[in-house]
């Protein structure tokens, strides 16, 4: 069964064998960035951790889950149209418009469009849901959404494996992109949360 093979490949020599390592590299980069910025700039800010800690913690975990998919996509460069749509949509809805575009472009205009639309929709829906749920266990909902997104992203890893099972990897790279993207996403998240415009409920 393909799922068993996929699990086996997590220990193998293919790109899937790098998923766990990529996850850890991303986690280390993001948390290091977060703690450095915290100790250099934000330590003296009143209630920084209690106001933003929970959300930044889960944002960093989400980025770490997204990075292996990005690496997997980059390893093969070319995918069929339908796969491109799925990649663009999944990653687009997870982190937004730019990464959706970035990943969806491997598969032509369909992938790009799907990435743009999903990122746009996901970003707006996230903000609106947060406002609507402000008094209704927002943090608990955040954890549930994180778990569901994690399962979907793992599903994307599996789908990519199935699609590329018989193909040769065409792009080899070190963890540079993982580190750069994790760093940028973490910095942007901190900037948006702390210094970006806020709705009245989060002021």
């Amino acid at each position, binding site marked *: 069964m393909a799922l068993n093979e996929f*699990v*086996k490949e*997590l*220990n193998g020599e293919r790109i899937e*064998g790098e998923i*766990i*390592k990529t*996850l*850890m590299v991303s*986690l*280390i980069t993001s*948390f290091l960035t*977060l703690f450095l910025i915290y100790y250099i700039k934000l330590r003296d800010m009143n*209630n920084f*951790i*209690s106001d933003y*800690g*929970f959300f930044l*913690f889960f944002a*960093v*975990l989400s980025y770490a889950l997204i990075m292996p998919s990005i690496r997997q996509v980059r390893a093969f460069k070319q995918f069929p149209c339908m796969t491109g749509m799925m990649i663009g949509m999944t990653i687009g809805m997870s982190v937004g418009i730019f990464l959706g575009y970035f990943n969806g472009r491997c598969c032509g205009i369909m992938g790009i469009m799907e990435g743009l639309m999903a990122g746009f*929709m996901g970003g*707006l*829906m996230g903000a*609106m*849901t947060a*406002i*609507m749920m*402000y*008094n*209704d266990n927002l943090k608990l909902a955040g954890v549930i959404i994180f778990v569901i997104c994690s399962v979907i992203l793992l599903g994307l890893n599996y789908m990519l494996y199935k699609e590329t099972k018989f193909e040769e990897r065409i792009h080899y790279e070190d963890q540079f992109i993982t580190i750069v993207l994790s760093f940028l996403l973490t910095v942007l998240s901190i900037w948006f949360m702390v210094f970006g415009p806020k*709705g*009245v*409920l989060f*002021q």
Partner: protein
Amino acid sequence: MKIKKSNLLYLVGILLIILLAGSFVISKSENLSNVSGTVYNGDVQIVKLSVQNGNYVLEPSEFKEGVLVRIEADLSNMPGCSRSVVIPSFKVSKTFSSNNNIIEFIPDKAGTFNIVCSMNMYSGKFTVLEKNGTKSDYVEQKINSGSSCGAGGGCGCGG
């Protein structure tokens, strides 16, 4: 299933990082809410909260700084999301229900402040007087009313 040694190390590392970061966040977090449930043995300012013409009305609408305020909501004329009340300046938020219609907080600064519903559709104002009874010049900036659902008090539209 046999796990490759390097992957096992990575997994342990991931778990450790998450545990360390998670415990740091939890240990540094503190409950900031000063909403209800506080046992208070001093004076209490009792305020009636209701909705009229899509706005919150507080009677009386002036409180003293440093004295506990108990807001009692009249749910009979508070529809939809007007029952979800937020006072951003004092980090107060609560959703009223028929058996829990009270908010308590201690205003620790003087001025004129906003009270809004959780979707920013219903709004109102109240004034906190200085400890000596004088009125402060501070007026909290008006919150732009009307959320993504449009104006008019209709909450609950969504994606």
